[in-house]
Each structure stands twice: as C-alpha cells, then as structure tokens.
C-alpha cells in the first residue's frame, strides 16, 4: 500500500493536534487544510470536531466546504462532532448539518448518576461487521466526551450504552463516523485509525 495522503479538515478550534500526533504514532503524516482542491485530492479525509454544531457548520459554510464534503468519494472519517455533522441536523443550536446520513443528533438525557456531558471510557458493542471495527474484541473500550449523540439507525455499526444506546460508530458508503475519540482511545483508537487508513480509496 502506498502511503496515504491524509487531509484533516481545518474546521477550527477542533482538537487537530491530538489527531496529528495519533497519526504520527502510526507513522502517517497528515496535512491540515480548508482548501477544497487540497481536500478533494486527498486519499483519506478526516473531519474532526470539538465545539458546538452550529458554530462548526458556520465555519464549514464560510469555507465553502458544506457543498464539497458530501461529494467526496474517498474514505471520510467524522470524529465526535465531526461524525454528527455528517447527519441531517443536530438539536444543538438547531443546526442544519451536511445531510449525508439521515438522522439528527439529540441531547443525551441527563439522569441521576448519569451526568452530561458523557465523559469517559465505555465499551463498544459491534452491531454489524464494518471495516472500521475490524480486529476489535468485544470488550473494546473507547473514550467519549460529548453532550449530543445519534440515535441508533440504519448506518449504525457499533453502539454504546449511556442510559439509552446510541451510535458509537456509523458508516454509509465511504463516510465513516466515530462518536468517540480514536486519538484518545489507546490501542482501540489506534486500531480504528489503522482500519480507516486501510479502507480502499475510490
């Protein structure tokens, strides 16, 4: 396999450094760009995200990337908020998102003993075989930090339970999503990133 040409979309304020370092630990260097031509030319595209959905969508629109991303044909990985942006909408600030995958991110219901944001290590339950999840054992723990989540739907490939189960991983065609942070999920996260980089380019 030739070295992947990974581009991380500069979505602003996102935790891009941790992702770059995680890829570097896999001996993969990644470019960070908001340039449509550069992103289109990449072999793999990562849409990271820390922050609020409406704010992130405003940044993508300003850079003209809201029109570009849904047309990408190479493997695209949305992480955390980046995964939520792949869907139709988010209840967070009533944001209209990229509309690639049907569904809407909802606020996680708070309950005694179940604070929100949901922060911490939880197990992934694989609900259907998916390239992103290859090689993971049933007790794979991943690190989550989020207040909104996607309900389980047709694109769901793994779930995690925090009160109700929610989508921990999704896939629709070449669009992959991880609600957890692979860069902060130790060996499990490294495996997910390796799997993504191994996904065939179009």
């Amino acid at each position: 396999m030739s070295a992947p040409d990974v581009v991380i979309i500069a979505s602003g304020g996102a935790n891009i450094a941790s992702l770059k370092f995680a890829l570097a630990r896999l001996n993969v260097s990644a470019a960070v760009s908001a340039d449509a031509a550069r992103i289109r030319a990449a072999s793999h595209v990562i849409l990271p995200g820390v922050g609020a959905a409406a704010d992130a969508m405003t940044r993508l629109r300003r850079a003209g990337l809201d029109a570009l991303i849904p047309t990408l044909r190479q493997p695209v990985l949305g992480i955390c908020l980046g995964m939520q942006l792949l869907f139709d909408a988010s209840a967070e600030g009533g944001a209209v998102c990229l509309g690639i995958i049907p569904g809407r991110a909802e606020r996680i219901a708070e309950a005694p003993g179940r604070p929100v944001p949901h922060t911490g290590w939880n197990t992934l339950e694989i609900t259907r075989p998916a390239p992103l999840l290859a090689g993971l054992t049933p007790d794979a723990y991943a690190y989550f930090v989020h207040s909104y989540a996607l309900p389980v739907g047709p694109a769901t490939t793994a779930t995690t339970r925090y009160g109700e189960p929610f989508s921990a991983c999704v896939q629709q065609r070449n669009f992959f999503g991880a609600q957890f942070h692979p860069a902060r999920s130790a060996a499990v996260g490294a495996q997910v990133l390796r799997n993504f980089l191994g996904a065939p380019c179009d």
Partner: protein
Amino acid sequence: MRFRDHRVVGDILELAARYRDEGADELVFYDISASPDGRSVERSWVDRVARLPDIPFCVAGGIASVAQAEAVLAAGAEKISVNSPALSNPDLIDALSERFGAQCVVVGIDSHTVNGDYFVKQFTGDAARTRDAGRRTLDWVVEAVRRGAGEIVLNCMASDGVRQGYDIAQLSAVRGICRVPLVASGGAGAPPHFVEVFRDARVDAALAASVFHSGEIAIPDLKRALRAANIEVRP
C-alpha cells in the same frame, strides 16, 4: 501530575509514558505555580508532552483567557482546567464553554473545611499566596456548572498529601449538587481508598499523584482491586 517547585517528581515525559503504558485512563498536568506567579502554563512542555499520550489529557495552570486556552488546546490537550483565574473572573468559564464546549472546560476547586462547611481557597500553588476565595464550595460548584463547566475536580485540601483516604463526606455533599462529572482529588494512599470513593461518594473518577509518582500504587494493581470490588474499569 502536580508539580511543586520544591519537589522534583522526575521527568515529565518519562512519567507520562509510564502512566500511559500502565493503563491510566487520563492524565492531568498541573503547572500549579503559574497562577500565583501571574503567568500561564509553560507552553514548551505542553508541546512536548502532547505527542505522547493516546489517552485524554488535561492541562491546568494560569489559563486566564480564551486565547491562552486556545493555545493549549491547539498544542494537543483534550481539556483545559481553570481554578484561580475562574475565581478572579467567573465570566471566564462562560467564555471558555461558549468557545470550546462544556466538555472541554474543567473547573478545579481547592476546598477546605471550616466548622462543618466547605470553603474555596485560591492560589494554592504557592503557600505564601494562598488565600480564601470568599466562596462556599457548594455555591461555587453550582455557579461553575451553571456558567458552563463540564467537569469539576474537587481537591479536598485537608486530605491532600496525607494519604488517609479521600474526603468522602465532602465529596458526597458536592456529588449531591453536581450534575456534571465529578473527579475526586486529595487523600489517596491505598487501593481501598479508591474503592471507597467510587462506592460511597459516587464520583466519576479519582485523581491521585504522589502515590503513583512514588510507585507505591501500581495502576494495574489498582485496577485489579477496583474490579474485585465490582467497580467497572477499563482493562
């Protein structure tokens, strides 16, 4: 990891790598003399240390503006923790939360007990400059969460460094009014203390420094003890 000028705790990078490999679930870096010295956290070591951990890590120390927080997050930190600067300027919590999201914003609180009630201390990184913040701990927790804190780290000062166990009464009181993740700090001396704080104070995480630095508690042993007590931990 808590750094005091008068105590050498070994090379930061070496410790970070050791804890990562031993199965720590999160690393917290405190530059505790930053606030009393009127400066922000040393960027040089954030930059260096950020390459190592494949687990979440949080940086604290003198972060007093959105711009300073942005620099620390851009260097690769997962979360930022504010303590003294938030007491001087509570609007900082709102500003950080609005910009980065609540999940990114940890408020650290140093709390001590006076006549059965709990009060906040400021500038605890320097004994000579430590002062009363003029706030009840429970009030400050509620206010910090209302302003957008996504996590509270409660350091119970009387227990800190004594290794006689976490302050279960105080942590339970705070747990009762804290609807975001609560992290216990101060007092860990042995694995049963961790069991106790998870079981009795229902905290979401427990932080310790000196017992890990000294090697007195090995993280794999601690996790075995927690699992034996039916507390779910990552292997």
